Structures are given as structure tokens and as C-alpha cells.
């Protein structure tokens, strides 16, 4: 099994690599197109700002490469948001895999709720089966039900046709997206204890 982590200018690559190591996967961190194409699984992590990250991806031709990948790809946090169509953060056109437009949280009607949404929150798998072929969220299993995951973000993808799990903070939003070979989590599985590790395992086992 060859797992590649996309190397770009958004942080936390090392944390993702460590988390994979803890579940017995020795991932390589690379921006080399051939290596990424030939990997069995690709992880697209990220902590950072959308427009800066997209600029970097475009300059390094990683934008077209990511879109062309056919093996399972996992986007994490900003990685997930970059897989969406557009982000309000820096008014950025993103990769357009998922048909969501990422928005900034607005707490004007909920002043007690702070931004960023930072900390542990629970997620709900979607029941509506609106996926291609009516599939459910493939990265969640029963051991994940009702468990807490670690979030840090000020922008969110609204619930849409590719949403497979939701979280509620100020408004319901997409905790997980899924379309064809693309999987994504708004939370950080690499920082979410044993539940997060289980989700990473489920991705590796796809």
C-alpha cells in the first residue's frame, strides 16, 4: 500500500504523517506528480488560508493534478474546502469537485458562539442517501456514532448534495463530503484521538 500526502504550503502535514504512522502506514510527503498519480491513496491535508493555498497549488500545477486523480483522495479541513467550488475566504475559486460554496460562519444571531469553531463536536451521518448510487458515508462505521471529533475552522461548507455527515455549530454544515473517489472531512481525523484514527483506517481500507 502506497499512501502519499500532498506537500504544499498549508501546515500540519507532519501531524497527518504521524497519525498514519500510528495506524501502521508509512506515508510519503510529496508534490511530485508521478508519485502522487501512482499512489494507492492520496491525502490532501491542510491548515491555512484558502487563496494562498490555491495560488500555490496553481503555480505548482497541483490543481489539475488533484482533479485528475482516480484513486481514493482524502481532503482534510482546508483540504476539504479547497475541493469545493468556491470559498468566501479570499473570494477564491477552488477545485470544484464538490458542488459546495464555502462560507464564513456568521455569529451575529448567536453571539455566545465563538469563531473559529474550535474544539470537539459530534457529527451526524446523513440518512438521505443522495450519493451517486445512493451510498452512505464510507469512512464512518458504527464505532464512530455519537463520538466527538476535533474541529478548527472559521469557514464551512453548507449542507449540500455531496454531504454525507453533518455537524451543527451556529448552523448545520458539512462535516464530511463524498463524491466518487473523493472523500473529505472538515474535522481533523489526525487530531481526533481513537475515533479519528478509525476514520483514517477506514479510508486506508477502501
Amino acid at each position, binding site marked *: 500500500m502506497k499512501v502519499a500526502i500532498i506537500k504544499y504550503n498549508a501546515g500540519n502535514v*507532519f501531524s497527518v504523517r*504521524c497519525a498514519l504512522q500510528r495506524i501502521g502506514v508509512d506515508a510519503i510527503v510529496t508534490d511530485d506528480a508521478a508519485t502522487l498519480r501512482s499512489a494507492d491513496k492520496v491525502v490532501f491535508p491542510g491548515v491555512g*488560508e484558502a487563496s494562498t493555498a490555491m495560488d500555490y497549488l496553481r503555480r505548482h500545477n497541483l490543481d489539475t493534478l488533484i482533479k485528475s486523480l482516480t484513486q481514493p483522495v482524502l481532503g482534510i479541513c482546508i483540504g476539504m474546502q479547497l475541493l469545493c467550488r468556491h470559498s468566501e475566504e479570499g473570494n477564491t475559486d477552488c477545485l470544484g469537485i464538490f458542488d459546495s460554496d464555502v462560507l464564513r460562519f456568521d455569529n451575529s444571531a448567536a*453571539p455566545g458562539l465563538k469563531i473559529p469553531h474550535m*474544539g470537539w463536536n*459530534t457529527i451526524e451521518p446523513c440518512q438521505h442517501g443522495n450519493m451517486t448510487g445512493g451510498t452512505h458515508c464510507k469512512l464512518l462505521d458504527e464505532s464512530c456514532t455519537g463520538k*466527538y471529533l476535533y474541529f478548527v*475552522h472559521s469557514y464551512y461548507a453548507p449542507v449540500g448534495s455531496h454531504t454525507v455527515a453533518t455537524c451543527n455549530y451556529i448552523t448545520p454544515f458539512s462535516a464530511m463530503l463524498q463524491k466518487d473517489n473523493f472523500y473529505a472531512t472538515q474535522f481533523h481525523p489526525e487530531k481526533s*484521538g481513537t475515533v479519528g484514527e478509525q476514520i483514517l483506517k477506514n479510508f486506508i481500507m477502501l
Partner: protein
Amino acid sequence: MLARRIIPCLDVKDGTTVKGVNFVNLKNAGDPILLGKRYCDEGADELVFLDINASHEGRSTFVDMVRRVAENVSIPFTVGGGIASVHDVGRLLEAGADKVSINSAALRNPGLIDDIAHNFGNQVCVLAIDAHCVDGEWGCYLNGGRIPTDRKLLEWAYEGQERGAGEILFTSMDHDGVKQGFACEALSELSSRLDIPIIASGGCGAKEHFLDVFAKGHADGALAASLFQLNEIHIPDLKRYLSDNGIAVRI
């Protein structure tokens, strides 16, 4: 529902974990990596590693320890102590830290908060404030509580938020190590005035103090060191107690 966080703090000096009583008389208590891993297994929501001597002696935090923590724990962690530049922050984040806490350096150079937020995002920047109450007014201190400043707690915390801090870690020097409870009134005021999460530190000695800090102090997280280190409170017991009393916690 967003859970309230329980955050064990590890004060690190010369590579080992220590706990101060009112910032002096440091007692030694273990290997930071093993202890961090134990906390993680017990259900801690986050960890904080403070290089307590760094600011005093001008040393920078141990990057190697940070890297080993990142390899071994699966929850977020913050590193603090002696961080004075964007370069220091970059090195710690590369080593796997999720956030950095800045204290004295921010009081000396408030623009550091803007720089960290601009380069790495607000969520990375935790503004730690050590304050002491004199005649009803909370003043901020430098260098681990050694040097008073003319900054007041509320105005400094607010300025920190406006400059881009993602979180405030407020330690009451009056309550720290005394085990009579957190500074709930000051915390509640901070929480109501600010839009960013407030982490309470200093003063807990019993489970009830945690209930108070969430229910009355409206803190988003509560931090403690010796209590967890010396096994005086077991994290799973604490979380069950909080949950039984209506506080949302991750179990």
C-alpha cells in the same frame, strides 16, 4: 454540541515535567512524552506544554520534544514558553504543534500577535495572560509572573483578540496552586466581553471547581497541571461528573 475542554498542562523544565506552587518551589513530576500520552489515553481534549524557564533565561522551546509529542499523541497540543518571533512559531508548527501560546513577548511587542495570525492563522495564536488582582483590578505580568506591567487584563485580552489571537489562556496568579477554585468572576467577564474562546487556568483542586468554571465562569476550556499529574483527579471521573451535571464533554 461543542464540548467544554479539559486541558492538562505540562510545565517543562530541562526536559522534565514540573509543577510550581504560586510560580515558585518547583516540584518535579515526570517525562513529558509519557505523561502526555497517558493524558491522551485518559481522555484529555488537548494538551499544553510550557517551557517554564524559557522566557526567564531566554531559551527557546525544545523542538525535539514537540516532535516526539506529535508522534505520540493523537489530540491537539499547544506549546509555549520563550516564543518571541514568527520564526520560533514556524519551527514549532513544523515540528507538529497545533498552536503556540505567547505571553511576555506579546506584552513587549503586541505586533507579534498580528504577525503570527497573519502568517499561520488566528487559530494558531493563543495569548496567555498571567494576571494578579490588586484592589479589584487585574494587572498583567511578564516572565512567569515575575515582573508587573501597566496592562490590565480586560483591555489587554481585548487588544489581543483584535490583533488576531485565536484564544485567551488566562492564569490567575492569585489562584494558581492554591486549589480553592478558578477565578470565575474574572473569567465570566472575559468570556462575555470577548468573541474568542477563553481557557481558564489556576486554582482548581476539586471536581466542583471545574463545574463552576464552566457553569459560572463560562470558560470554554479548563487547564490544570498538578491535579492531573499527581492523580488527584482522574480525567474520566471528572468528565463523567461534569456530564452528570449537564456540561457537554467528550466521553
